[in-house]
């Protein structure tokens, strides 16, 4: 008997290559698929080399239009409006899974796997994303929008492995990527900063404007709100003490600066909420990638959901707030500007 067909999202990097190899060792007929995101042929060529090295079929799927519409455009517009969006969250939901999974199922595959470091836990019909076994590499934050229905046919073969184990497996397999440095940046920024990327697109947010202190006095000039994100220190005028970006005020094209404590909030409001379980079960929230979770309580009214944090943290509008119970993702949403009371 020949094994079930599994599609593996092959990026050209070491993680997805090892994910493919793990599934193949498990008896699957693996087909490597790479999305053409319109970012040049390098990643696709690299993925093709990987597929050749492990001896699997390789396909390229055109995702340029979907990627531009669902990820890049919203990213630029949000930055121009003074927010700090997380494009990887959107991409996982809308493109990597949103486009590939239906294509895989349509083609008769048993499921779709990727090289993400996360686990899927829970019984069939109620599967949830959970943190990877090795927390340092955990990518569950970026996957919080995947629903139990989607997870029914998805696998993350690296969820139990450490990065070192993955590199070791890659070396054993003789994969050409074993020594390659890993990429952490947003793929479509290609070395530039988000600010420069957004101002080059001319969608707004790039006009210079005032830097205000907490009392609303002008204390300097900024180079365009798209270059700033709450909590950051860079690009602010000198003062009596270190200054941080406290908030961005798109209505006045202003950056508000103040001491570190002023950046921190005791709660955040959510938009685009998505719950896989009861919000009452939530124990803690991550308000940005790679941040440690803060204990919190979910307070919901008819029109608003607010996360009350156990201690204040810096949280940027546009980032995802991902809620956990233990290691399991319960749900979350996009952080929106705190309502003035």
């Amino acid at each position, binding site marked *: 008997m020949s094994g*079930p067909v599994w599609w593996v999202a092959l990026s050209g990097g070491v993680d997805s290559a090892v994910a493919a190899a793990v599934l193949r060792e498990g008896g699957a007929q693996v087909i490597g698929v790479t999305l053409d995101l319109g970012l040049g042929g390098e990643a696709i060529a690299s993925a093709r080399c990987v597929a050749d090295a492990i001896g699997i079929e390789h396909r390229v799927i055109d995702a340029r239009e979907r990627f531009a519409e669902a990820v890049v455009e919203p990213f630029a517009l949000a930055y121009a409006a003074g927010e700090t969006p997380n494009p990887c969250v959107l991409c996982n939901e809308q493109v990597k899974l949103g486009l590939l999974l239906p294509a895989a199922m349509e083609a008769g595959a*048993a499921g779709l796997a990727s090289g993400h470091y996360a686990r899927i*836990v829970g019984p069939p019909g109620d599967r949830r994303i959970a943190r990877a076994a090795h927390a340092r590499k955990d990518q569950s934050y970026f996957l919080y929008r995947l629903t139990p229905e989607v997870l029914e046919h998805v696998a993350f073969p690296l969820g139990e492995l450490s990065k070192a184990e993955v590199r070791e497996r890659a070396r054993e397999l003789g994969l050409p990527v074993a020594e390659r440095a890993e990429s952490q940046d947003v793929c479509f920024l290609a070395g530039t900063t988000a600010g420069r990327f957004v101002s080059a697109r001319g969608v707004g947010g790039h006009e210079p404007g005032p830097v205000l202190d907490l009392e609303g006095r002008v204390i300097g000039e900024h180079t365009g709100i798209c270059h700033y994100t709450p909590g950051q220190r860079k690009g602010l005028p000198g003062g009596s003490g270190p200054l941080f970006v406290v908030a961005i005020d798109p209505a006045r094209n202003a950056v508000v600066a103040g001491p570190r404590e002023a950046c921190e909030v005791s709660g955040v409001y959510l938009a685009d909420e998505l719950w896989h379980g009861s919000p009452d079960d939530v124990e803690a929230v991550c308000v940005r990638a790679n941040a440690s979770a803060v204990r919190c309580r979910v307070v919901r009214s008819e029109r608003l959901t607010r996360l009350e944090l156990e201690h204040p943290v810096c949280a940027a509008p546009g980032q995802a707030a991902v809620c956990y119970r233990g290691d399991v993702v319960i749900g979350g949403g996009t952080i929106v500007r705190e309502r003035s009371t």
Partner: protein
Amino acid sequence: MRRVYLDYAATTPVDPRVIQATAEALASWPGNPSSLYAEGREARSALELARTDVARRIGATHPDEVVFCGSGTESDNAAVLGIARKAVAAGREPHVVVSAFEHHAVLEATQVLAREGYAVDLVAPDVDGSVDPAAIGSALRERTALVSVMHANNEIGTVQDIRAIAEVVHARGAYLHTDAAQSLGKIDVDVRALGCDALSAAGHKIYAPKGTGILYLRKGTPFEPLLRGGGQEGGLRSGTQSVAGAVGFDHALAIMDDERPVEMPRLAGLRDTIERELAARVGPVTVHGSGAARLPHLTNLGIPGCDGQSLLLHLDEAGFAVSAGSACSSGSAHVSHVLRAIGVDGATGEASLRITVGRWTTADDVERFIEAAAAIIDTLRRR
């Protein structure tokens, strides 16, 4: 307190997706698959679709080689009794050879043959839990009728080299049956690769409803049916078929196959964690069968210095369902025939615990189990 089920080798809960497929089949095809009018033909068509898919999945050459039946035990009984009796009627010697650690469904069937005057030889596995094909060869007579060796053992999970055994058996013209109740869906089960003439499996080990099973009978294998009546299943198994049972079995097997590349490495990881961490907490434990190829989701541990039944009952009280030996022989405090067959005599004062993980088991469950088991073992040893 939430209970943690760690006895998937005893039985599996029915997967909700299988429940749905089975329920839909119950509602959709009320007819008798043997009836000639539309209701019957529709039911028959659903039944044959399930048969064709199961046949393809186990590598059968023709769908008719798959017989749906009522349980793994029925399948084992039918194979052992049916093949031996028909082969003997056709001139083979009334002699059967089985491994000493077969399931009771096979062993008891050979006892029926023994009462009919057959010679029955039991071949012991080695201390690792492997049945040596050469040992089977030595037990064979010139015209032995049937050999039955299980694909994977239900208590210690060791996987047998059925292909090599088939070569030895077929060289003498005898027939080979294998009980694949524990292996189907967990490892590759392909009747052509295994080379067996007959194979048995049960639905309730693969998240399908209890009361379902299959018997694979390679074309040309002599077989005298166990159940007589209306001649259903090509005359091989009379009794109106459970269309929903067949659909559920097929659906469950499809899920096992689809998820195996992902699920089995995960389960093997959980199993390895149990073996490693328990030894780290309570000192040396014996992993029965660890010297042989094993199923990924099963471990059978010998834990020195405590009693198996006490350990099982304390674990039950703490919320954990595990087995001391196999479920079929538990309730009796003596060492199981499987462990005795691999040389565990009970005199060493070891508790033996069979732990099997499955589709619902999480890393957290395993962690809690290790905590609880270590504490209980510690308490029992102090007594």
